[in-house]
C-alpha cells in the first residue's frame, strides 16, 4: 500500500463537496415534503430525502476516514457514489413510469418531473467521483 502515491487529493476533496451537496439536497427534499419550503426543481420526497441524508453520512465518513485510513475512504466513497448513481437511475424509471401511466390514462403529465428530483442533480455531481474512485478500488 505504501507503494501507491497519494495523488487523489482532488477525489478526496470532491468527496467533501458531494457530502455537502447530498446533505443539502436531502434536507431540502424533506423540508419540501413537510411543506416548509417550495422550489421549482424540488419535489416533496421525505423518504428520498432521508436516503440522501444517509448517503451524505456515508460520504462524510469517507471524508473523515480519508485522514487516516485510505482504503476505508475509498470504499465508503465508492459505495456512496455507486448507490447514488443507482438510485438516480431508479428515480428516473420511477418518475418516467408515473408520467407514462398518467399519459396513458388520458391525464396531463409534466415531463419535467422525470428529471427534477434532487437525486438526479446530486448523482450528476457524483459521477466524476464514481469514475475516479472505482479505478482506485482495484489498485489499493
Amino acid at each position, binding site marked *: 500500500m505504501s507503494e501507491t502515491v497519494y495523488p487523489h487529493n482532488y477525489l478526496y476533496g470532491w468527496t467533501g463537496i458531494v457530502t455537502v451537496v447530498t446533505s443539502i439536497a436531502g434536507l431540502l427534499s424533506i423540508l419540501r415534503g413537510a411543506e416548509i419550503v417550495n422550489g421549482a426543481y424540488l419535489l416533496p420526497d421525505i423518504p428520498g430525502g432521508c436516503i440522501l441524508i444517509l448517503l451524505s453520512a456515508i460520504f462524510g465518513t469517507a471524508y473523515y476516514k480519508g485522514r487516516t485510513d485510505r482504503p476505508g475512504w475509498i*470504499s465508503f466513497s*465508492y459505495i456512496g457514489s455507486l448507490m447514488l448513481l*443507482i438510485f438516480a437511475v431508479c428515480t428516473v424509471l420511477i418518475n418516467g413510469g*408515473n408520467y407514462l*401511466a398518467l399519459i*396513458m390514462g388520458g391525464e396531463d403529465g409534466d415531463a419535467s418531473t422525470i428529471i427534477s428530483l434532487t437525486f438526479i442533480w446530486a448523482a450528476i455531481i457524483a459521477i466524476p467521483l464514481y469514475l475516479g474512485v472505482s479505478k482506485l478500488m482495484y489498485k489499493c
Partner: protein
Amino acid sequence: MNDIRILLTGNPNVGKTTLFNALCGVHQHTGNYPGVTVDIKEGKRHIGGQSLIVCDLPGTYSLSVFTPDEQVARDALLTSNPDIVLQIVDATNIERNLFLTTQLLELGIPMIIALNMCDLADEQGIKIDSECLARNLNVTVVRIVARSEEGVGELVDSIVKLIEEKKPVSHREVLYPGSVTSHINEIGNYLGSHAKLPGNLSSNCAAIRLMEGDEHLEKTLHDQGLVIPFLDKCDPAERDSIAEDVLLARYRTAEEIMACSVKCTMGRVMPADLIDQVITHRYFGIPIFLSCMWFAFQLTFSAAAPFAAAIEIIFGYFNEIITGMDMDPFIRSFLIEGIIGGVGSVLSFVPSIFIVFLLLSILEDTGYLARAAFVMDRLMHSMGLHGRSFIPFLMGFGCNVPAIMATRTLQSRADRIITILTLPFMSCSARLPVYVLFTGVFFSAIAGSVIFFLYVLGIVVAIVTALIFRRYVFKGEPSPFIMELPPYRRPSGTAAGIHMWYKGREYLKRAGLVIFGGVLVVWALASFPVGVEYGSAESLAGSLGQLLQPLFAPLGFNWQLVVALIFGFVAKEVVVGSLGTLYGGEDTLHSSLAADHTLTPAIALAFLVFVLLYLPCVAALGVIRQETGSIKWTVIIVGYGLFVAYVVSFITLHIASFITGV
C-alpha cells in the same frame, strides 16, 4: 438404454444448481447465497444411447450433519448407490472445498470434480493446475464456468468416459495417525463380518465415519444390536480427541493438495473486503438495506404502471367489443364480469410481479442479499430469531411455500418452528396485486411508500411473534449463526431475465388455473339464484358476505371485501380476481373501488393489513403441516394469524381514521 445415475454434491453456494440446470436444460431456482436447495432435485440428459440421471443435492460442508438439508445430502451419498459422484468445487476457495473431497474419496464411488467459477479464480489471480490436482487426487478434474456453460460438454464426455472405462476405484487416501489407523482397521474388520451397512458403504469407510462421530450411522448399528469395538468403551473426551485427529488429517491432506496445485497472490486487499466494510457496516448496514428495499418497491409500483395501464386498455377494448355483440345476456355477464372483470384485473398486476422478481434476482446475483442476512443477524438474534432465518424470509417475499421448505437449513427444531410460524407474515408476491390495487386507488401519491410500510409491518409482526414464542414457548437462545459470504458478482441480465420469466410464468399459470377457477366460483355465486341482479346483496355471494360481514364490521369491511377474503384463502391472487368479479361491469375495478362510498383510505389500509397478516394460502398450509410434522402447530399458525390480523387491522383502522379524519 443405460442410465447413469449421478449425485451432484458440493459445499453450499458453489453453483450446483446452476450446473444442474446446464446439464439437464431445466431452470431450477438458483441464488448467490447458501441454502437455496433443501431437497433432492432430479433431472435427465440424453447422450446417444445413454441417459444421465442427475440428482442435485443440498449443499454440505462435510458428511457430518447438523441440519435436515445436510442430512438429505448425507443419506443420498451414503445409501443411494450412485454410478458417479460429481463434486462441484469453488475454484476461488479450493482449500475449504477439499475437506468434503477427502470424505467423498473414501466412499469408493467413481468420482469427478468440476472446478467451477474458474473465470473468477483467474480474475483474482488464483492459478490452479488442474492436471496436478487430478494426479494428486487420482480423480478426473474438469474446469468449468457453470453460468456460461463453459466446459459442461467436456464434463459430460468425462462422465461417459469414466463409466465406459469401468476402472476400479483407487482414489487418494487420507493418511491418519497410526493409532487412528489401527482402530479403523479393528472396527472395519468387525463391521465387515457383523454389520449390515447402508447402501454400498464399505466397512472401512463406515469405521472412519464412526471415528468422525457419525451419530446416525452409530445409531443404525446399535439398532442392529451391535457393540462397536473400541468406540463404545471410549469416554466422550477420548472420542472428541479421535474425531479431532481425523479432522486434522483431512485438513493436512487438503493443504498438501493445495500446496502443489494452487498458486495465488496472497496478502492483497480484495475489493470485496472493501465493499463489505460499508455494506455490512455496524451502523450503515441496515439503513442501506432499507434504502434498497424502498427503491425496489417504488420501482415495482411505478415502473410497472404503464404496462398495467396498457393491459387495462386492452381488456377495456375487449369489454367494448363484447358489449357491442349480440349474445345471451348470461354469457355476456360471464365474459364481462367473470373473465374480463376477474381474470383481467389479476393479469394487470403481472408487470409488478415481473419487476419484483427481476429486482430480487439482481440483488441475489450480486451477492448483496447474503450480506443483508449478515447485517440483519444481530437484530434478528436479539429478537429471538436465527440469523439464517433471514434467507427463508427473503424467499418468502417471492412465495411462502419454498420459503417454509428452506427452514430445513436451520439446525434446531425450535428455530425452525419459530421461523415457520413467522413466515406467513412475509408479503408473498401473490399479495402484491392487492397492495398495488388499493394503494393506487386510495394512496396514489404515496403508493410506493404504503407498500413499503406493509412489507415492513409484516417483518415487525414476525419479529414480535418470534419474541413472544421465544420467551414463552421455546425458551433459550437461538443457535449461533455461521454463514459464508458469497463473492460479489456482476449480475447477469440473461440470468435475471430468465429468473423473472419463470417466476412470472408461474404466476400466469396460477392466474390460468387457480385464479380462473376461483373467479368462476365467485361469478357463479354473484349470478345466482337466477333473476337476482348480478353481484347484488341478494345473490349467493351477497348472502355469504352479509352472513359473515358483522364479524368484520369493527374493521369497516363491506361484504364484497369479506367474500374476497374468504376466496383469498385458496390463493391470495383470487382476492383481486374476486373483487374484479364482484365489482365487475363497464368500469374498471380501479374506478369502481374509488366510487364505492363505503370504502375510505383508513378502511382500505386496514384491509391491506388484514390481507398481509391473515391466513397463509392452502398450498402454504400443506407445506407447514409437512415441515412441522404436526397438526397442532398448523392449527396454531392459522388461529394465531387470524387473531393477529384482526387486532392489527383494528388498530390500523383507528390510527388511520384519526390521522385522515375520515
